[in-house]
């Protein structure tokens, strides 16, 4: 009467269990360990100032990673997020003349438009996600540069700049936005039909189709959401940098986001979205970098450590998936 796993030799079973635990909670354990180590060896680690810096830096990554997590939940991937950030930052100065709100709306619409193209290619044409989003990865930044005339522009609008630099109850605004979005995305995943359906589609597309789910509509929407979130991150980054630089903003962002999502325990083959895990994944990589740099172990080591973390995460996921 018990499950089929009963007959699996104990040692392998335990290993699979360990890997599963690592996939689910390893990222939190790693963060905790890293914080403890830092408290012990890094001077001025536990200062408010340091904490603020770290969080402000990680906020855009977290926001982009949410969109990426949703897309990966459907067994897809969105390579265009960095280009979306570039497009947003290019669009904003063009419309600042009409006020902050139209400018930001224009920037966000840029993200939505990219998402619509990606989503249509994936959902209706049936292109593999990695290829569909590759087209706008290449073209998106080009459009951004064309829109901006290829120039770096300083942004002077005070209202917009406040977005990047002001605080709410001592917490920097970008961090507040990221925190609010964390709650919103968690609610979307858990409490909406959209969230339920997207993980179902990622978990088993055939079963989802047979269960009558609107598979194409959900896929389209998930890429739109990813585009929108990347645009939000682009807006915040523009405000913080006080400049619009479409040639460099968001470079390699797709890699950071994928890393955060994977390290956070969301499996690359879909069917699950771990929102808090994604936040933790982004934080972990930020912490690793910060720690190494604080101790003069430079960026090079940080990147190699990041590579190892990614591989460890997928290895754990793969072992756990074999249960």
């Amino acid at each position: 009467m018990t499950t089929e796993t009963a007959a699996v030799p104990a040692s392998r079973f335990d290993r699979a269990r360990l890997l599963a635990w690592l996939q689910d909670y390893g990222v939190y354990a790693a963060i905790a360990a890293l914080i403890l180590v830092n408290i012990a060896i890094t001077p001025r680690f536990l200062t408010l100032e340091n904490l603020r810096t770290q969080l402000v830096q990680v906020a855009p990554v977290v926001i982009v990673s949410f969109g990426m997590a949703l897309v990966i939940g459907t067994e897809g991937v969105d390579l265009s997020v960095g280009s979306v950030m570039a497009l947003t930052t290019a669009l904003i100065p063009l419309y600042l003349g009409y006020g902050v709100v139209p400018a930001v709306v224009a920037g966000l619409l840029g993200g939505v438009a990219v998402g619509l193209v990606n989503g249509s290619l994936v959902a209706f044409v049936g292109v593999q996600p990695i290829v569909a989003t590759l087209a706008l990865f290449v073209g998106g930044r080009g459009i951004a540069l064309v829109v901006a005339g290829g120039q770096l522009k300083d942004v002077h609008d005070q209202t917009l700049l406040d977005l990047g630099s002001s605080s709410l109850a001592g917490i920097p605004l970008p961090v507040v936005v990221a925190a609010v979005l964390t709650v919103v995305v968690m609610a979307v995943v858990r409490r909406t039909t959209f969230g339920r359906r997207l993980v179902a589609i990622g978990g088993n597309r055939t079963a989802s189709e047979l269960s009558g789910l609107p598979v194409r509509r959900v896929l389209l929407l998930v890429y739109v959401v990813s585009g929108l979130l990347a645009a939000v991150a682009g807006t915040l980054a523009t405000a913080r940098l006080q400049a619009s630089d479409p040639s460099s903003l968001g470079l390699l962002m797709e890699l950071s986001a994928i890393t955060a999502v994977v390290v956070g325990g969301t499996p690359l083959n879909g069917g699950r979205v771990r929102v808090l895990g994604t936040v933790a994944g982004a934080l972990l990589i930020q912490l690793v970098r910060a720690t190494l740099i604080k101790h003069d172990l430079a960026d090079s080591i940080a990147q190699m450590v990041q590579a190892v973390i990614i591989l460890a995460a997928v290895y754990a996921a793969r072992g756990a998936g074999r249960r």
Partner: protein
Amino acid sequence: MTESMTATAAVTEAAAGPTGRERAFGLIQRHGAAAVLVLLVAIGSFAFDRFPTGANLGNIAITSSFLAMVALGMTFVIITGGIDLSVGSVFALGGVLAAYAVRWGSLAALLLPLAVCGAFGLVQGLLIARVRLAPFIVTLAGLLGARGLLLSISNEGATTYLIPRGAVIARVGQGSLFGVGYPVYLTLALFVVGAVLLQRTRFGQSVYAIGGSEDAAELMGVPLTRTKVAVYVMSGLLAGLAGALNAARLSSGVTILGTGMELDVIAAVVIGGTLLTGGAGSVSGTVAGVLLLGVIQNLINQIGDLSSSYQQVVSGAFLAAVVVVQTYLSRVQRLR
């Protein structure tokens, strides 16, 4: 037993022939890039006096040749159904290693990048073929790892190693014959070898078979692990070689090169008609894809007042169009 073979032509292809539309799409997929290339060159020749000059064409050739070398390796990887995101970093790594090793002579400047980058491909290939991790993620980690490695060699990018003008490798990178740089000839030679390897050897057949259907290939006796590892090693070697020669041409190992190059390379390969799902594609298509990107960039430069960013827009649009056609085509074939 006389009844066995009464109707000799019992089975013929008549009923199963491709439709005209399918054939047209097939042609677009395989030769679309070449056709557009010819068209663009023709337009460019009419529109701009400075376009069809030997110097300009030679310039297109030399700037395209490094991308082409990397794309050659990528073509093999993609035909097996894999992907190699690490090539941009490996390209940069190859350049820095070459510049770093030139102090021990030009041979070292060539061999060190080849050895390290080949080993890099080997590790990735083993993780993909033996441990069976997804190529996408392994080479993503490789992208970071290779860049980390190159930064640690170059003191976090602070040190730029130079290649003295007199070094043999510098002459190889910078010299030219009939107005065309040596690297172009080397690239051509590599593509000829690549084409033979892909079309005319058992290894090439294995590459196609694995990408077409890994399960079937295994049942048909194709050496899966060996072939897969080999394509990632090739990709690493070619990216390293291209990086080393590029450094020789620039006289220094520039650390920031190659960022985002992997996606340009993939774009060129896909535009050239190689299916990202694997199993179909050609080396000649990749040449067309690379040259197409090069010519677009050159033409946009010729127009002058247009920013070079249009190149990205155009190649992105072209990529999207190619992919839509490819997907449509393979869907038509699957439904039959």
